[in-house]
């Protein structure tokens, strides 16, 4: 949308003003996330840039908050818990979700609308309501304050993402391929392993990543059903924000941003690969 040479002065003004506005909005999106990265290297226990930091004096910077983070038992425990719970619930959610998506994509699925509604519901119901429901239910069956309880809850929250992403890759799925393989004598497991799986793999992986980040980022359910031994990183940050708000939280936050960048990159690469495989050429 280059500016044509015959543009009026007003159009000229609007052309540049619009770009400035957009730049400001992008700044609004990114600044809060980027700002805490330098602040996490603050040598002082404050949340603002010290004079030394602004003049780029090396004395203004230090790794003390990272040292504090990695030497704190409770932070280390929460990091371990977050990965443990995240990975366990991702494996469960991905398995259940992929199977369900395969079933849903079949033309002969009865009650499709109703079933889809139920499968998507964990994404739609406000978390506070899910948390309240699970708090009572898990308490009554001895799952509250256990790892299994948190893993099951996070699995439930993660499955809609797997269902949606895998279903999306199946939209362009050519069912004659599996029929051809079966017709050539391949048993169903082989068909799945050699034909279906490679084609839906990008969807499965990006669904799994969504499920992982959902669990990794989840706090409301953890607040209600997790005990002190199941504390995750967001739960630790929650306590930190409400109590001793020190730059250690910023160090943890910076690490989380790095993890998000890594996950985002993987998802982007997968999306492109999937589009290429399914013959949807990027414009």
């Amino acid at each position, binding site marked *: 949308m280059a500016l044509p040479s015959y543009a009026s002065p007003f159009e000229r003004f609007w052309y540049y003003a619009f770009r400035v506005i957009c730049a400001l909005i992008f700044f609004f999106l990114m600044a*809060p996330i980027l700002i805490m990265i330098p602040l996490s290297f603050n040598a002082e226990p404050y949340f603002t840039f010290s004079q030394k930091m602004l003049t780029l004096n090396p004395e203004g910077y230090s790794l003390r908050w990272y040292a504090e983070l990695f030497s704190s038992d409770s932070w280390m425990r929460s990091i371990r818990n977050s990965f443990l719970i995240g990975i366990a619930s991702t494996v469960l959610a991905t398995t259940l979700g992929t199977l369900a998506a395969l079933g849903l994509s079949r033309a002969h699925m009865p009650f499709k609308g109703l079933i889809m509604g139920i499968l998507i519901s964990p994404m*739609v119901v*406000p978390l506070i309501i899910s948390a309240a429901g699970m708090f009572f239910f898990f308490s009554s069956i001895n799952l509250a304050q256990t790892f299994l309880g948190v893993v099951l809850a996070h699995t439930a929250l993660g499955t809609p993402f797997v269902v949606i992403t895998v279903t999306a890759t199946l939209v362009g799925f050519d069912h004659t391929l599996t029929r051809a393989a079966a017709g050539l004598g391949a048993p169903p497991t082989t068909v799945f392993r050699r034909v279906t799986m490679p084609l839906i793999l990008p969807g499965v992986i990006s669904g799994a990543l969504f499920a992982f980040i959902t669990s990794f980022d989840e706090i409301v359910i953890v607040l209600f059903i997790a005990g002190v031994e199941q504390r995750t990183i967001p739960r630790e940050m929650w306590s930190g924000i409400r109590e001793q708000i020190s730059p250690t939280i910023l160090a943890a936050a910076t690490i989380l941003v790095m993890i998000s960048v890594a996950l985002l990159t993987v998802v*982007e690469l997968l999306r492109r690969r999937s589009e290429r495989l399914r013959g949807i050429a990027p414009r």
Partner: protein
Amino acid sequence: MDDQTTSSGLVTADGQPLKRSLQRAERTRKLTALALVGPLLAFLLVIFIFPIGQMMWRSVDNPQIVNAIPRTLEALQEWDGEGLPDEPVYAALAEDMRADAELPRREQWMGRMGVRLNYELSGARGAIARTSRAVDEFEPPFKEAFLDAHRNWGNPELWQILEREGRPLTASYYVAALDREYDSEGKIVLRDENRRIYVSLFGRTLALSGIILFLTFALGFPIAFYMSTLPMRYANLLMICVLLPFWTSLLVRTTSWIVLLQQQGVINNAAVAMNFISDDQRYSLMYNMQGTIIAMTHILLPFMVLPLYSVMKNIPPSYMRAAKSLGAKPWTAFRRVYFPLTLPGIGAGGVLVFIISIGYYITPALVGGQSGRMISNEIARHMQQSLNWGLAAALGSMLLVGVLILYWAYNRLVGADSLKLG
């Protein structure tokens, strides 16, 4: 339309009528599909749907009084509802209380009844706790003994409540959740002005969600439009600015807004350093409504941009050119041609943002202060602090129904299947 008649005569190689064979194949496929979906469906029904149903049940469940004072309730049937009941009712109550005290402590109902009654009448718990400690020493006439033990036993209102709530189901949590109460004749009336909170809190939640919806639209539309006009390469680059916040932990984003907004925070310090304001005039940006609005707009903006962008990307630029070449001014072309085409994206993003924001809990709890509280925070308070689980369930059920209606509308509008991620 007559393939039925034609096919009924056909048979497969093994001699089966084709129709039956096809039906069987159809049934097998249906079963396979169900078997694939089954595990997840069963899992969600048990782990997710059932608990929510159970929680909603709590909003009408009312076992405390029925279990605590069965004899009293029976004796109360004779009562005309005027003034105080007669001696037999008080005697039955004494008997109920003594029987309850015989039970193991964990199975006693009297304490739970006290808590339950207190939701209806403040001070009722005190009356029950104090009386049940003294009831062993009571001697007839019981009516006098009870009236001596606590003033509330002489309060006809308490007896009306016992009669009204002495049944296994109740509507009173919903009555309270709608800022209403029962008057002395048992009619549902509006509460005193200084005790009406939930309706206005629902209103505030809707208003805040509306403001956030508007802001995400106002900020999301221009950048989605701009990205859609760029070549794919640049658009993908800018897309990272939208996706990174989307993938970044909610707690991280809330923390960074605390860093920015607090009085000694980056924004205030910058404003002081640039002499916009003096040191003692720092803005109060946090622990109030602004805090909630700013942080939530940032957090929800990607949910508006992503659907908008995917719609705009697919609007051929030739439409605008055609409109202009037919003589439309740029603004008219935009308003009459382009904008209507983006409506599905606006609808999808808008409903998404609105659904998420009316159920939001974490950000208002951390940066919202008192004026930035939303209905979820009140549900959490009743769950964890005031422990009025019935009221929490009633408020939660109302919120849930609201969200489901919105989701249904969203589904009609764009279809849940079209939900795009990332």
